[in-house]
C-alpha cells in the first residue's frame, strides 16, 4: 500500500529526519493561511499517489500567500495523471544546492534488503541506473546484523561527503532503515534528498510502500485500505473484498481462470490471436461454485465485455464445482453474452456432464478456446 507524501513525512519526522516545515491543505483558502504562517516562497505539492507527479505539473511554487491560493485552486481543478487532486501539502521552499537519492527495497535474487544511494537525485532512480550506473551506490543488507552506522557512513563517503555533513547524512540513512523495518516497507525512498545552500539536508520528497502482506501488523493502514481504495476501480475493489484477484484491462474479452500463471498465459494467448482481454481474473485454487458464480457475475456485468472466456484447469479446483458455479450465474443473470468455456482436470467428466446437459458447450484445449473467443468477438459477439 502506498502512503501519501505527507503521511510518509509525518513518520520520517517522528524518527528525527529533517523534513521541510509545512502543512496539509484541503482548500485554497487554507493553503493561503499556511503560506502566511510559513512565510514565502512556498512549494504547493498535490497529494496523489501516482509517480512522475512533478513532471505532470503536480508541484507549483508561489511567492506570496494570494498566489498560493490561486495556484492551489488551479491544482484542485486539475487531474494529475487521471487522479483528482483533493489535498495539497504547502511547504517552505528549500534552497537547493544538490539533489541526492536514498532508498531501501528488496533484492529478490539475493533475498535481501538493499540500500541504494545516488548523487543524482530528483529523477527516477531506474533512469539513473540505466543511464549512469556509475552514479549508483548499492549495499546489500545482511539480515543477521542489519544496516549499521558504518554502512551509512560508507555510503555518505561514496556520495562525496565528509565532516559533520557525513554524520548528518549517515544519520538520515540509519533512521530511514529503521522506518523501513518498523513499517514493513516494500520500498522506501527519499527522492530528492536535498542538500540546501547552507549545507544542511532535508527530505524534499518521501515515498513509502508498505508490504500488503504485512498490513495485519499495521492496523491503522489496513483500515484505510478498505476505506479508500484510491487506485482501484469499483469492480476491482468489489473483487478484492471477495478474495478474487482482478485487474481491469482495456479490451472486450472477459477472462476468468484459476491460478495467476494460467490466467496470465490466457491473456497472452488471446493477444496472440489478436483479441483484447477486458480483465485479468484469477478465482484462485479450490474455488467454490459460489465464488465462480460471483466471478462470472462481475465479468458479465462489465458493459465493455462482449465475450467471456473461462479457462479452468482443475487441480485443487474441482471442475464440477466450477460447472455448478457457471449454471448458478446463468440462473441468476442469464448468459447475456457469448461464453467460451474450457474445462479440464479434477472431476472433469462430472463438470462436463452438468454443463452439457444444460446446453453449455465445453472445450478441451486452451488454444482452441482462445481462438473461438476471438472469432466470436469478430463475428459480433
Amino acid at each position: 500500500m502506498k502512503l501519501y507524501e505527507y503521511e510518509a513525512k509525518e513518520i520520517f519526522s517522528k524518527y528525527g529526519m529533517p523534513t521541510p516545515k509545512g502543512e496539509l491543505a484541503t482548500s485554497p483558502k487554507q493553503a493561503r493561511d499556511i503560506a502566511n504562517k510559513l512565510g514565502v516562497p512556498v512549494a504547493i505539492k498535490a497529494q496523489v499517489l501516482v509517480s512522475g507527479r512533478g513532471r505532470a505539473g503536480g508541484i507549483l511554487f508561489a511567492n506570496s500567500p494570494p498566489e498560493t491560493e490561486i495556484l492551489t485552486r488551479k491544482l484542485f481543478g486539475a487531474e494529475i495523471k487521471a487522479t483528482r487532486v483533493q489535498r495539497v501539502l504547502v511547504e517552505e521552499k528549500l534552497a537547493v544546492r544538490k539533489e541526492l537519492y536514498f532508498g531501501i527495497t528488496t533484492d529478490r535474487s539475493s533475498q535481501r534488503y538493499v540500500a541504494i544511494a545516488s548523487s543524482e537525485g530528483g529523477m527516477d532512480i531506474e533512469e539513473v541506473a540505466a543511464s549512469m550506473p556509475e552514479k549508483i551506490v548499492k549495499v546489500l543488507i545482511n539480515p543477521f546484523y542489519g544496516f549499521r552506522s558504518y554502512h551509512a557512513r560508507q555510503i555518505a563517503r561514496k556520495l562525496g561527503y565528509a565532516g559533520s555533513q557525513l554524520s548528518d547524512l549517515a544519520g538520515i540513512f540509519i533512521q530511514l532503515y529503521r522506518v523501513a523495518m518498523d513499517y514493513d516497507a516494500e520500498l522506501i525512498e527519499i527522492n530528492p534528498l536535498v542538500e540546501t545552500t547552507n549545507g544542511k539536508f532535508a527530505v524534499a520528497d518521501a515515498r513509502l510502500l508498505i508490504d500488503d502482506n504485512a498490513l495485519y501488523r499495521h492496523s491503522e493502514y489496513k483500515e484505510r485500505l478498505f476505506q479508500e481504495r484510491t487506485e482501484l476501480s469499483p469492480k476491482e475493489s468489489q473483487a478484492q473484498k471477495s478474495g478474487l484477484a482482478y485487474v481491469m484491462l482495456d479490451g472486450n474479452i472477459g477472462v476468468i481462470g484459476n491460478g495467476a500463471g494460467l490466467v496470465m498465459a490466457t491473456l497472452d494467448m488471446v493477444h496472440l490471436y489478436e483479441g483484447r482481454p477486458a480483465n485479468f481474473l484469477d478465482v484462485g485454487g479450490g474455488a467454490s461454485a459460489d465464488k465462480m458464480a460471483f466471478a462470472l457475475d462481475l465479468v458479465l456485468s462489465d458493459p465493455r465485455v462482449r465475450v467471456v472466456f473461462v479457462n479452468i484447469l482443475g487441480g485443487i479446483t474441482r471442475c464440477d464445482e466450477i460447472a455448478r458455479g457457471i449454471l448458478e450465474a446463468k440462473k441468476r443473470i442469464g448468459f447475456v453474452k457469448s461464453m467460451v468455456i474450457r474445462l479440464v482436470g479434477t472431476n472433469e467428466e462430472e463438470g462436463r456432464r452438468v454443463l452439457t446437459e444444460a446446453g453449455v458447450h465445453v472445450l478441451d484445449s486452451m488454444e482452441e478456446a482462445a481462438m473461438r473467443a476471438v472469432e466470436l468477438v469478430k463475428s459480433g459477439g
Partner: protein
Amino acid sequence: MGVFVGGDTKAVVQGITGAQGSFHTKLMLDYGTKIVAGVTPGKGGTQVYGIPVYDTVEEAVMEHEANASVIFVPAPFAADAAFEAIEAGMKTLVVITERIPIRDAVEVMAYAKREGVVVIGPNTPGIIVPGECKLGIMPSHVFRSGVVGVASRSGTLTYEIASGLSVLGLGQSTCVGLGGDPIVGLSFVDVLERFGEDEQTRAVALIGEIGGNLEELAAEFVASEGFDKPVVAYVAGRTAPAGRRMGHAGAIVMGRAGTAQSKIEAFLRAGVGVAEKPSDVARILAGELRR
C-alpha cells in the same frame, strides 16, 4: 530418485489439522509419500489419517526421523513455523502458505541458507517426483515419471505444461514450484544446478512469469556454465500492464524491471528455446529429445 526429495524423504506436515493441511496430507499419503508426523500447537496427541500429531516439531523429530517439512501454517505464523523446522534439523522445507510478509521471508531465507536448508516456496504448489513422492498440493494425475525436469513459478501453469508433456509421452523427473511470492527460497539457477547433475533428467522446462530477474539469471547460467541438457522456457505475462500485481504477489513489472520481454530476450540470447504458448513447451522438447 528426484532432486531435492525422493522416495526416502520422511516428512512432517506443519498445520496438519487445518482444512488444507489435513486434505492434502491424505492426498500425499495416497500418492505414497512418507508422511511420518504432523504438528499443530495445542493438538498434540491427536491423529490425522492415522498420522500422529505433536505440539512441536522438536517432539515430532524425536519420535520419527523426519528430514523434510511441508508447511500449511497461516501467513502470520508461517515464518515462526519455518524457523522451528530449521532448528529441529529439517533439510528441506516446502512452504505452501502464500503472502508471507517480505521481512519475515528475508529472515527465514537467511537462516535457512546458513544452516544449509533448502526452502521451496513460499506460495509454492510444492515438489513432485512422479511415482515416488509428492510434497505439496499438485494434482498428481497429470504427472508421469520420465526425463524432463520442470521448474516453475506458477502452479496451474505447471499442471497445464506437465499434462502436455505427459500426453506426448514425455514424463517428468522432478517438478518443483519455486513459488509466487516476491521472496522465495529457490531460484531457477539452484534447480538447474541439480538437474545438471541428475542422471534421470535429460531435458529441462522452465516456466517463468513477470517480476524479478530469476529468469534472466537462469539464462546467464545456461550460457556461461555451458549447461549441456536442452532447456525450453515459457514466460507468462507478455501482455501484462506495468505496475499491477497479476495474482501473485511477485508477479509485477516495476518500472523497467521484470518484463516478460527482458526475460524472453535473455533466454534467446542464451540459446534457450522459448515457447510462445504453454503447449509449445512439450512440442519443442519432444523435438530436442529426438535429436
